């Protein structure tokens, strides 16, 4: 069971986010609150996840034991790419308590498609692959649908390249998503620049108008503060 999926949080979630989710589920499943007979079981699972994720050491060890995060999208899946759909289905462990449907934000299933496995990109990892924290064996077939991917987590170069080459389709999907996002932010930016210019122009106009009014109505005051040239200018204009 993937604790992050259980909590419905990204792997990079902060300790505060982890705690907040735990509190959310505790209110939902603690037997004092939930009267259903399986509340006890559900709470124990939530608590188990929290006990691992709240402790930085346990969490690091647990993160290393996790397979790469694989997420696929229904929206962008091409007919030939049935793999991604399958893996999305597989990665949902059978024993995950039902996550409230309302808490899933709709974009989560459509953006990230492949995030490189942390430890394989971690230079420290290659030397530590035999440490006890990693001795836990992983059933890769559960998470990776293609036979090519069944390398171990040692991060050996051949296995890695294998993985990279096999996932082009999904990588492409991710870039598409990114491009779209960038476009959107550019649009927002240009919009804000033009509105800024417009605003400053309006303000300048109002200022000049005020100055002119003062220069006409009571030129002495402006002279007193050393703005004789302004008075002269407006005198000439008038």
């Amino acid at each position, binding site marked *: 069971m993937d604790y992050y999926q259980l909590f419905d949080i990204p792997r990079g979630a902060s300790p505060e986010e982890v*705690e907040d989710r735990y509190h959310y589920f505790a209110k939902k499943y603690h*037997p004092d*609150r939930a009267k259903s007979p399986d509340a006890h079981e559900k709470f124990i699972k939530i608590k188990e996840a929290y006990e691992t994720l709240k402790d930085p050491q346990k969490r690091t060890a647990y993160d290393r034991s996790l397979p790469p995060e694989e997420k696929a999208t229904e929206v962008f899946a091409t007919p030939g790419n049935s793999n991604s759909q399958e893996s999305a289905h597989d990665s949902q462990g059978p024993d995950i308590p039902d996550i409230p449907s309302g808490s899933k934000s709709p974009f989560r299933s459509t953006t990230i498609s492949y995030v490189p496995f942390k430890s394989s990109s971690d230079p420290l990892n290659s030397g530590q692959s035999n440490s006890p924290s990693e001795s836990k064996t992983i059933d890769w077939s559960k998470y990776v649908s293609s036979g090519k991917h069944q390398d171990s987590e040692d991060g050996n170069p051949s296995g890695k390249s294998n993985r990279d080459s096999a996932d082009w389709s999904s990588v492409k999907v991710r870039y598409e998503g990114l491009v779209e996002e960038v476009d959107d932010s550019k649009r927002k930016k240009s919009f804000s620049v033009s509105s800024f210019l417009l605003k400053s122009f309006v303000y300048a106009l109002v200022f000049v108008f005020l100055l002119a009014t003062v220069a006409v109505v009571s030129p002495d005051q402006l002279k007193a503060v050393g703005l004789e040239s302004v008075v002269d200018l407006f005198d000439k204009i008038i």
Partner: protein
Amino acid sequence: MAIIELGEPRVITNSEGKRLTPSVVGFSKKNELLVGDLAKRQMISNHENTVQSIKRNMGKPDYRVSLNNEKYTPHGISAKILQKLKHDAEKYLGDAVEKAVITVPAYFNDSQRFATKKAGELAGLEVLRVINEPTAAALAYGLTDGMDNRKILVYDLGGGTFDVSILKIKNGIFEVLATSGDTELGGDDFDRRIVEHLLAEFQKAEGKDLSDMPQSMQRVKEAAERCKIDLSALTTANVNLPYIFESKTLDIDITRDQFDMMTEDLVKKTLSIMEKTLQDGKLSPVEIDEVIFVGGSTRIPAVVKTVEEFMGKKALQNINPDEVVAMGAAVQAGILGNEYLKSPREEVDAGNLVLLDVTSLTLGFETVGDLMAPVIPRNTTIPTRNSKIFTTHYDNQRVVRGKILQGEERAASKNVTLGMLVLDNIPSAPKGIPRIEVTFDIDANGLINATAKDLGTGITRSVTIERPEGLND
């Protein structure tokens, strides 16, 4: 005892109009059952038919109290007290009282909790929950202003027991981080020091040892308690007991300094338990936002001074330390009954409050060589479950028999035995081959269930913990 009224916990008075009911039970000379103040009043005149501080003996399977030529179990005595409270509450409310939340010291083991629950049932109450006293106090304080996103330490020095709990309150979640205590340390021990002093002084002056005279001893004990209470307000207290022995009078002054000297080690003992609890919670005193005082003995000036110095902050005592536990129990009852609870922050009503308590003692299984194999460590949030795999220690062993233990000692025999776990019909195999998974499950009530699974055959057996005979009647 307390109830929830209009969203707020409220202590209600007993039939004598008092907010506190002393846990004293007795029979009058006319063979009437007396509970509370009435029983306390006859402690001198009829001490052989009166019993107090029964809490210290809860859960002891072989302990019996003789009253009026009859033997009573500790939970039987306790039930008499609860019965009175139930009756008085019904009189006050004008309605039947059927369910209750009962509090116990946090450091009570499973047998003691079980016995408490039993006492409630004997009194005709459905015990919704047995909760820890310091946790209850935190619940009562948690509903007061400004108690959000805070770490609090509850220092609970009652009459007979001492508890420390550290909790974190955030968004209506009361999470116990660590708890510890001593079920044999409390205000009674402070009294005893004064008693010892008085006896020694009297013997010096009059050459008479009063300790073998029950009636005189009872008077000395009561005077010692009063003296202790006086010393919380005065710097010198006088103990005057006329005719304590024949025509002799006991007349001794005790200063607060003297008292502090006599009890210094007791206060130090509470400090070391507090330190240990902070260590368990991986916290230092500066990380604690609030210190809460619970229990009458926290009125002792030396206790206040020592604890505040150690923690580096003033302790809160704005809810009566004798009543705060009962109020917290009412809050928990409100949570369980989904009652409306008033709180300074609207989003934190009963529908949004959850108490996450912990198991205060390590739970384990006895193995060969008088060792305890821990299965669920102390300070684990409950409900919880954990398993350990055990095996046979000789060839063709068909039965595995072991004690279910609770405590922190490595040696099995030094811990408390909760019951026996017996697994038979293990298929014959060389030693070390069978793999038997023993699982302990603690529910939100703190009650333990055990299952054993033979991983070789896949046969699962649920094992009920057989409690000692004495707890069943």
